[in-house]
Every structure is written in C-alpha cells, then in structure tokens.
C-alpha cells in the first residue's frame, strides 16, 4: 500500500522574559534548585498571579510574524491535572480565546520549492516545575524554578507530509522566534520543545488516519529520526491489517524507537475552565499596530535583502540568514571587509569549518566578526594571499592576536616590491640552469606546463610571501631571456 504521512506539530517555546509569567521571580536556567520561586510559583493558597506585560508583547510579535489574527480579547483557562511538579493542581493556559489565532508561514524545501504551512493558534501558558527521579531514598525531588516560566505553544495545522517538511517547519519557527528575540530557542536546554502528531492514510484518501503523539522531542535531528521510526512502525501495523492506537509515545534516541507512555486512564480529562484569578486581556488596535510596525526583519526578508543588496546566491543567502546571530556576524564581516562575496565565502567556509569541528555556535566564535573582517581587508589589499590568510585565521582562532599582529609577528606580508621579486626569480633561474634551458627549447604549449615548476620554486624561495600577481609577468619575461 502507498501511504501518505500526515504531520502536525506543537512547539513549546520558552519566552525570554526577565521574570516569570505570573510572578516576579527570575526566569532562569541552571540555577540552584528552588532559588527562583515565589508563593505564586509554589501554589500557596491565596497567592495571586499577576500577568507579565513583556510576555504579552512577545506573543503578539509572534502573531504578526506568522501573519496571524491577534486575539483582541484573550482568556486564561485552567488545565487541571495532578502531578507533584505542578503544585497548584492546574496549569494556567489558554483554551477558547488564545492570544494568537489562525496564521501561516512559508517553508523552503531542499529542492527549492516553497510550501505554506498553516498555524492553527499560539497561546500563552506557564511551564511546570521539574521532577528529579534520582535516588532520594525512594522519593522524588521537586525543583520549582521552572514553574510559571512563560511558554508560547505554537500549534500547526496537519499540513506536513514528510519528516523533511516537519524539520523545515521547526527550523523556520526556530529562526522566527530567535530573530524576534522572544526566545533563546535552545533545544538542548529545553527552551524549545516539540510534540509531533503523526498518522498515515492510503494515498488519495481524504479523512485522516488515527494519530499518535510523540512528546518532547528536543533536537532537529531527533525530530527527523523519530518521524521516520514512527512512520515505519505505523506502516508495519497497518500493512498487517492492524489498527493504530491513539496514544502518547516517547522517542528513545539511543534505541531509535518510539514507545508507548503507559496511557494513564483519565489522562486527557483536563476539565478546562476560565481562570477566575485572571481577568480577560483586552488589547487595543493601537497597541497591536504599534508592535507590527516595530517588528524586526524576519529570516525570509533578510535572505531576499542579502540577494539584492550583496548579490549573494539564493543558497548562500539562505544559509547566512538561517539564524540572526549568523546573519549579524556576516553583515559585520562584509562591512569591515568591504567585499560581501569574500565575507560570505569565509563565514560559510573557514569559519563554519572551525565552528563545526569544535561544536561551537557562532556566538561562541573566538574570532569576532570585526577581527575576521580585518583579516579579509588584508587579502583585499594584497598584503597576504588567500592561502596565507588561512594560516593567519588559524592563529587568530588560537588567540594569537589580530590579523595585523600575526602578519607582522610571523613576517607573512607578501613581497610586492618588483626589484626584490626580480632578484629572487633570477636566483631561482640561476640555481636551475638545466630546467631553464629545457624551457627555452620547448614549444609554447609545453612551456605553459613547465612554468608551474618555476612558480613553485619562487614561492618556496619567498616562503609563500611573493605576490603571485607580481611574480607571473616577471617570471615570464626572465624565462624567455
């Protein structure tokens, strides 16, 4: 049977506010347990939530970025469930009136085609605390630092038809929220998490098959692998005439399999109702419009500008605009170097190679954008050639100083003085009389092949510092005698 895959995604993005969604405690990662908590976060009786203005602004920014309807009146609701890291016994979330309504975004697939993915809604909610199941004499440890951290839950339409499309969508959401500066988007630290809804149906059928939900997948690579694994599992069951059980599953990256989370009966009996502790949020058109007009440049807009302003290829523009940090870095290098194409080549080439080797993010690069730009200036003004520049870059990476300091200290400046080069070439010719004689006796075609030998000898004699542009004409002249 030929199956069609249907995928919808729920992405939880932690908003990068200073304080929490409903309390004045610091939002933090990696702090000592329970040091960033308040009576509100602990769910103490009588403690009342007060809504964070900045979280609201960030949610509206996201709404604009995905062309969505903004909920002019939105309402917080209680999602009731019992778990020790949720001391109130309910999660404050939104149900009927989310802050962000229907919208959409466009993703570019590997073959260059553009696909539109619908956004069903995005709503504000608070995160729960953390349960630590390590051995505390058979008990569970509870850390409530994360409790009441603001989350934006972004729900897509079931519009994706392959693992690749799903990953492209998640990357685009990641790119948008980091461009907007509303989330760090760090999947490893859990501030962007992804739930994958996935089902199969025979090609051509319009109604959806029974879906499963894979919870809390936390890297782009795992999203792709989890989907492949789950497609295979569902297809095997269906091919054998079996039925898919609607359930929540977990992806285990070590075994590369999904497995059922024991489905608690009543698991989905959340008994939502409007939160009586919080009033409806009313927005004015002026407030919403003002956020729209201050929206920063978004990834697709930036890629288009890179193509028109810097004449970059679509591919280069796409790579360089994928993250705001990468785009800002590239633009700074281009500005300092005065040559965007050269800047693009170095950022995507040498710099990315070093970053990948050491598993570093561009924000952790030991070579700043300005420093790289200054190195490229020295290629542009012929102080050094491209090959020397690579060794200078390595020294810069290892913290030996600025490009100019390293070029000076190691004496790497290209020799462009024609007199010095001429005598150096003469020295090479004098040292190789046989080759010179052979060269002069050959026809032009053969000479062209032989000139490489002399060029190599000259570069060797100059320790790579002779400017090839200056050497070539003089070498030709002297060889012809």
């Amino acid at each position: 049977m030929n199956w069609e895959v249907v995928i919808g995604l729920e992405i939880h993005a932690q908003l990068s506010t200073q304080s929490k969604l409903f309390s004045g405690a610091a939002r933090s990662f990696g702090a000592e347990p329970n040091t960033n908590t308040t009576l509100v976060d602990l769910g103490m009786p009588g403690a009342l939530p007060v809504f964070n203005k900045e979280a609201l602004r960030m949610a509206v920014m996201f709404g604009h970025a995905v062309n969505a309807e903004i909920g002019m009146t939105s309402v917080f609701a209680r999602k009731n469930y019992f778990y020790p890291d949720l001391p109130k016994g309910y999660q404050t979330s939104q149900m009927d009136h989310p802050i962000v309504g229907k919208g959409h975004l466009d993703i570019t697939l590997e073959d260059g085609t553009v696909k539109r993915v619908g956004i069903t809604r995005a709503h504000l909610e608070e995160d729960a605390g953390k349960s630590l199941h390590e051995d505390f004499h058979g008990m569970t440890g509870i850390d409530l630092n994360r409790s009441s951290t603001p989350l934006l839950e972004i729900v897509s339409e079931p519009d994706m038809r392959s693992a690749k499309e799903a990953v492209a969508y998640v990357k685009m959401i990641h790119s948008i929220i980091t461009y907007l500066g509303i989330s760090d988007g760090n999947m490893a630290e859990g501030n962007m998490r992804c739930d994958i809804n996935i089902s199969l149906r025979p090609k051509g059928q319009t109604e959806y098959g029974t879906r499963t939900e894979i919870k809390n997948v936390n890297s782009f690579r795992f999203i792709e692998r989890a989907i492949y694994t789950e497609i295979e599992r569902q297809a095997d069951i269906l091919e054998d005439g079996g039925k898919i059980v609607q359930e929540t599953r977990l992806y285990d990256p070590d075994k590369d399999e999904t497995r059922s989370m024991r489905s608690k009966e009543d698991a989905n009996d959340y008994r939502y109702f409007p939160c009586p502790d919080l009033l409806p949020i009313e927005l004015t058109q002026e407030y919403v419009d003002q956020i729209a007009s201050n929206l920063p440049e978004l990834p697709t807009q930036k890629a288009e500008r890179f193509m028109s302003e810097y004449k970059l290829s679509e591919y280069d523009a796409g790579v360089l605009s994928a993250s705001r940090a990468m785009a800002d870095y590239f633009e700074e290098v281009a500005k300092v170097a005065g040559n965007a194409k050269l800047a693009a080549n170095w950022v995507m080439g040498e710099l990315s190679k070093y970053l990948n080797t050491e598993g570093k993010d561009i924000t952790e690069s030991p070579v700043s954008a300005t420093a790289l730009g200054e190195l490229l200036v020295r290629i542009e003004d012929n102080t050094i050639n491209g090959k020397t520049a690579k060794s200078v870059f390595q020294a810069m990476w290892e913290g030996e100083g600025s490009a100019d300091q390293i070029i000076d200290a190691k004496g790497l400046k290209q020799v462009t003085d024609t007199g010095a080069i001429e005598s150096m070439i003469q020295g090479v010719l004098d040292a190789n009389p046989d080759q010179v004689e052979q060269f002069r006796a050959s026809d032009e075609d053969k000479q062209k092949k032989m000139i490489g030998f002399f060029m190599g000898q000259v570069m060797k004699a100059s320790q790579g510092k002779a400017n090839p542009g200056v050497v070539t004409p003089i070498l030709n002249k002297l060889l012809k005698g």
Partner: protein
Amino acid sequence: MSLEKQDVIKIAHLARLSLDDSDAEQYQQSLSSVLDLVEQMQSVDTDGVEPLSNPLEAKQRLREDIVTEENRREAFLANAPQTEAGLFLVPKVID
C-alpha cells in the same frame, strides 16, 4: 440524580482526594443538586450571548517585566515535611 456515584469517585480521583463510601454518597447528592440548578439555568435562551469568562467588569492589569522577588528558599523549604539538596521530596512518582 444527575451524577452517578461512579462520577463522584472519578472526580475525587482526578484531584487525588480520598473519599470513603458514605462521603461519596453525600457528595453525589449535594453536587447533583448544584448540577440540577445548572440544568435549570440551561433552559434560558442564550443565543448571541458571549460566554462570560469573569464576572468582574474589569480587564487584566499587567506587570512590568522586572525581577522583584528574592531567594526565600530556606523559608519555603521549612514548610515541607521532607527536603534534600534544596529540593522538596515527595512520594515517588511513577509515570
């Protein structure tokens, strides 16, 4: 009665409230009478009326995004029956 005893037991379980048999019967009666009242209200024609999410004629106040609270962990942990390494300890949770 609008509520079965089984419903009461389920609701209590969802909230992790312990309930003995006579409690369940009592709650079944009192909760049912509340629901009967709601049932009566259901007969009002509410076409075109927006559901009310809060009875107060007011809108939500917003708080500036500033950290205003200090670390009061020791005071908070002092309320808990069992703590270790800065954590609240609870009976083992089996998911």
